[in-house]
């Protein structure tokens, strides 16, 4: 990647952060709990995006950011008061700015049709009449480089050009501002043939010398092909800091170029000494108070800086390497622990204690390393307020988003991959969950609906809930649609929970007309797949008249898993603890045959299908192997509860997840592998996939549902 491209990537990464602080600042302004610094930060965010965008010639982005910044500058200067309408415009502009950044990132050159509309809204804030688009662009790009491109001009052989007489008398301020007449003249000499004659007439005796008064002056003859403006540009920075006159000579005065240039250099060297000393004396007295003031400013600055902690930006690859190494460390630790255990030493033996210390240390290191990848869900949540705004607008509803637990941290990958499903669920909540304002008033509710989004840590998992205070699920309608679409047999009788679960079936959509929001061809099944892919699960709960709540539970990390170690047909395997409800050793009378090969078990009066894991994975047991009687009751996504048949349960432990894909490809029923303490490789099972596998081969997918209802049961 070229340096330019990597800086470009950096720009987009930085813009992402700036957009976040922009959204954050605007949210504070919205809630009324802002101060001048909030507004300044908002201004700076837009300003920095504009600055960076300019560097990459992202003109559409610059033009919009420029206008946005103008409005914020007015707000910042208290010339524009903020009311609900202006805040709304600012928030929408921030959303649009994010769109433009995204488009620029994707190198999408097309003009965003909404830009004109947002520019107009911003113009309204400025109280000006909307200018034509071209004028906007002109204004933004009016800042053509103001410096002369000296490389183009080069030292001119000024024989045909004009000649100028320049008188130049620096004020003390010129030296104070860091200028050097010698350098100015050297720059001038690059334009053509130059002679500089110092005018020492005003220079007093050394005794009377006052560096605060201008006394050194030069008369310069310049013969150049350059335009007068180019000559003036040399003095651009010193305008007002010197007495300057530039007069074009009427008759050209051919000159001996080389000799004159040399003399100019000589003058330059001569004047260097006074330059260093001139400003020192008069400034000494004035300097002290200025210094004191600036120190005070520095202190104030430091005090304000208590907020952000210092951070270190590290290449993600390095973190992942570290995480892998820690995984190996954990495996190594459990191997050593196992070996030591096999020695049957006294429990107070030194080595036993050291091994225990090692275990604790390894665990600490692992947690610390995982914390590196952990990120707060805050930026993700902040993006959702925009989704709520947009969804509410396009459905004619009023909605607000209330978030809790924004500081909860989740693995970086989880945060990234959760964006799409969360967006979808939030849209759904507004679109399907909330009633219209009229409907809400009729129900005696606040016309503005509320979407609650929260994140919390609970027993090694992150729980994210999306709740609306809408009408709740219309179960009768859901069932009706499911029947119409042949998703359930017409005579199936389903519990409320089972009806709710229908929403997650592929191809299910409750919207009677496809709205342009939720009806984008994505259903809740996609949401569930995305969550499952992260090792999490989604649940739904709804109360008529009070709203609907979706709960997503996700593992804190994608690298380690709490698992139950079992054996299946002589193979050691791991089943994720999160899926297991309980372990059962049923009596023979509790297990029943259904048809020729399927078996069910009755657990507390409920019939649950039994799945032989060995058979599901294609293993065969030796003929004289005793019939396995250990069952793991698991909760699956699609099939409700199932009982997995395993040969033996060893213990519960934390295992490091090792991906299988590169070596194995996809193995149905197996999600990953791990290395156990004794060096054995064990497969990590995916109970959902195992349950689905079994059902796929069965004729009627809803047999399970009927069984659960205890009806039409054929017990052999």
């Amino acid at each position, binding site marked *: 990647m070229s340096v330019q491209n990597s800086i470009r990537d950096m720009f987009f990464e930085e813009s992402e952060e700036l957009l976040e602080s922009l959204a954050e600042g605007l949210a504070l302004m919205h809630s009324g709990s802002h101060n001048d610094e909030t507004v300044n930060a908002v201004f700076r965010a837009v300003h*920095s995006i504009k600055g960076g965008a300019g560097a990459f010639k992202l003109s559409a982005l610059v033009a919009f950011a420029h206008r946005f910044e103008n409005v914020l500058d007015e707000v910042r200067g208290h010339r524009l008061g903020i009311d609900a309408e202006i805040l709304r415009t600012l928030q929408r502009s921030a959303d649009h700015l994010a769109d433009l950044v995204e488009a620029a990132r994707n190198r999408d050159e097309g003009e965003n049709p909404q830009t004109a509309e947002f520019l107009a809204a911003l113009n309204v804030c400025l109280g000006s009449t909307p200018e034509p688009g071209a004028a906007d662009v002109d204004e933004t790009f009016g800042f053509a480089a103001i410096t002369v491109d000296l490389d183009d001009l080069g030292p001119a052989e000024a024989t045909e050009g004009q000649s100028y007489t320049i008188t130049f008398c620096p004020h003390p301020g010129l030296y104070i501002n860091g200028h050097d007449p010698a350098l100015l003249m050297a720059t001038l000499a690059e334009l053509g043939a130059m002679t500089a004659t110092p005018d020492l007439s005003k220079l007093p005796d050394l005794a009377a010398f006052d560096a605060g008064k201008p006394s050194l002056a030069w008369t310069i003859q310049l013969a150049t092909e350059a335009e007068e403006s180019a000559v003036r540009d040399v003095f651009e920075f010193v305008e007002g800091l010197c007495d300057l006159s530039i007069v074009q000579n009427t008759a050209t005065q051919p000159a001996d170029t080389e000799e004159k240039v040399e003399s100019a250099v000589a003058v330059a060297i001569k004047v260097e000494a006074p330059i260093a000393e001139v400003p020192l004396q008069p400034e000494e007295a004035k300097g002290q108070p200025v210094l004191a003031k600036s120190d005070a400013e520095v202190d104030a600055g430091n005090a304000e800086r208590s907020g952000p902690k210092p951070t270190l930006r590290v290449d993600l690859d390095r973190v992942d390497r570290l995480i892998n190494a820690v995984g190996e460390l954990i495996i190594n630790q459990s191997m050593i622990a196992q070996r030591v255990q096999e020695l049957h030493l006294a429990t107070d033996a030194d080595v036993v204690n050291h091994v225990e210390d090692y275990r604790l240390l390894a665990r600490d290191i692992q947690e610390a390393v995982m914390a590196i990848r952990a990120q707060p869900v805050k930026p993700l949540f902040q993006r959702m307020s925009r989704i709520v705004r947009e969804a509410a607008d396009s459905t004619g509803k009023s909605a607000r988003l209330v978030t809790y637990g924004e500081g909860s941290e989740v693995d970086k990958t989880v945060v990234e991959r959760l964006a799409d499903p969360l967006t979808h669920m939030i849209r759904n909540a507004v679109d399907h969950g909330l009633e219209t304002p009229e409907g809400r008033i009729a129900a005696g509710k606040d016309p503005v609906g509320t979407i609650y989004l929260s994140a919390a840590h609970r027993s090694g998992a992150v729980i994210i809930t999306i709740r609306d205070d809408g009408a709740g699920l219309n179960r009768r309608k859901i069932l009706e649609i499911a029947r119409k679409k042949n998703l359930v047999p017409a005579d199936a009788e389903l519990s409320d929970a089972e009806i709710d679960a229908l929403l997650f079936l592929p191809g299910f959509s409750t919207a009677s007309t496809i709205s342009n929001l939720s009806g984008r061809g994505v259903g809740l099944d996609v949401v569930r797949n995305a969550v499952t892919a992260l090792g999490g699960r989604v649940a739904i709960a709804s109360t008529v008249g009070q709203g609907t709540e979706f709960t997503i539970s996700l593992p804190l990390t994608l690298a380690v898993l709490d698992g139950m170690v079992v054996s299946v047909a002589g193979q050691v395997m791991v089943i994720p603890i999160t899926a297991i409800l309980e372990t059962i050793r049923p009596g023979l009378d509790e297990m029943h045959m259904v048809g020729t090969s399927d078996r069910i078990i009755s657990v507390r009066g409920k019939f649950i299908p039994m799945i032989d894991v060995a058979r599901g994975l294609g293993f065969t047991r030796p003929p004289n192997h005793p019939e396995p009687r250990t069952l793991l009751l698991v909760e699956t996504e699609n099939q409700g509860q199932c009982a997995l048949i395993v040969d033996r349960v060893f213990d519960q432990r934390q295992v490091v997840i090792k991906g299988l894909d590169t070596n194995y490809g996809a193995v149905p029923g197996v999600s990953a592998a791990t290395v156990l303490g004794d060096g054995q490789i064990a497969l990590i099972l995916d109970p959902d996939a195992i349950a689905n596998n079994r059902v796929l081969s069965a004729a009627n997918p809803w047999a399970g549902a009927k069984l659960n209802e205890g009806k039409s049961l054929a017990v052999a």
Partner: protein
Amino acid sequence: MTIKVLAIDDSRTIRSLVQKVMGDAGFDCALADDGVQGVARFHEDPPDVVITDINMPNMDGYGVIAAIRGGAIHRNVPILVLTTESAPHLKAKAREAGATGWIVKPFDDAAIVSVVRRVTGARA
């Protein structure tokens, strides 16, 4: 002797761009994230020229100029202001504050290098 540049900007992107352009021109370029850090860095290792942004948290560009110009030593080091503003009154304000010159963002690589050469006397 290699020209030492100190670039002060709160935007990572701009800092990196300036550093790259300065590096390509054969200058050493130190960086600072905001005015307070910039002034501290200035005194730790005085550069030959400072390039500073105006809008920054903690201490803005004017604050940087005031702190450097008001300092006991190296107060006449050239300070270039990197700004998106091209309005004459803002240039005048920068000059009054003590800026040696200014570079308007988005900057042209050759232009910024030539300005740095111009105020430091460095030759190509």
